[in-house]
């Protein structure tokens, strides 16, 4: 049963990632990326990371995809038309390199030894992640909020009109 779910999610993820890369129209590419996000949320649910799956849906599928679509609608289409698609020569040149790196990294992962059993099995995922986030990782959490604030100010400065 586990492997049926895995193969379904893997096929879904790979097909939509291929669509994200190879669709000509950027809007189709974004919609295919939305499908990638949904498949990733399914993978998180399968790996018993429920909080991460919910946040993936909220942050990626709502905030980031809507932001991309809004930006695409602001760009005038007639000038963009000639820059759609992919570079053919770079595709042919980069495929063997990526294939070799996939084989070598997969070999390293399959041959390596992972250290097992960090602590006891978690029953309530949201509670455990929240407790760890707000006690042990409180400082990185606050730094993340500062990073978001800086990103917001930077986006406003980049987006205003030149005068």
């Amino acid at each position, binding site marked *: 049963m*586990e492997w049926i779910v*895995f193969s379904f999610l*893997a096929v879904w*993820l*790979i097909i939509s*990632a291929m669509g*994200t*890369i190879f669709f000509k129209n*950027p809007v189709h590419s974004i919609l295919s*990326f939305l499908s*990638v996000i949904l498949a*990733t949320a399914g*993978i*998180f649910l*399968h*790996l018993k*990371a429920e*909080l*991460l799956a919910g*946040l*993936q849906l909220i*942050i*990626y599928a709502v905030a*980031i995809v809507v*932001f*991309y679509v809004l*930006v695409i609608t602001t*760009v005038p289409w007639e000038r*963009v038309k000639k*820059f759609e*698609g*992919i*570079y053919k020569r*770079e*595709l042919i040149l*980069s495929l063997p390199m*990526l294939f070799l*790196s996939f084989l070598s*990294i*997969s070999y390293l*992962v*399959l041959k390596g030894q*992972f250290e*097992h059993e*960090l*602590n006891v099995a*978690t029953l309530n*995922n949201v509670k*455990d992640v929240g407790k*760890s*986030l707000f006690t042990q990782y409180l400082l990185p959490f606050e730094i*993340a909020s500062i*990073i*978001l604030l800086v*990103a*917001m100010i*930077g*986006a406003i400065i*980049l*987006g205003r009109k030149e005068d």
Partner: protein
Amino acid sequence: MSISLAYIILSIFLFLLGLLGVIIRKNLITMLVSTELMLNSANIVLASVDHMMKGVEGQVFALFVLTVAAAEVAIGLGLVVAMFRLKGYESSSEITHLRG
């Protein structure tokens, strides 16, 4: 071969697909989408290692990766729109000022 190891292999494949997208796409916005694919694959690795080692630290770091992804998309799309509005660039092959 456990299920978490299979998910790690799958996420390596997804990462390389995102890298391929960054290499071959002509449009700047779709290049940014390909970087989002790479960030997603990093999140899958963190969650599957957590599932293997029965911890929660990987999920905490995956939350930080989500934060960085949100900041990156705000800054990156702001840069793309500013480049298009000020210079008229929309392709990755037009930005050649640093080529020398």
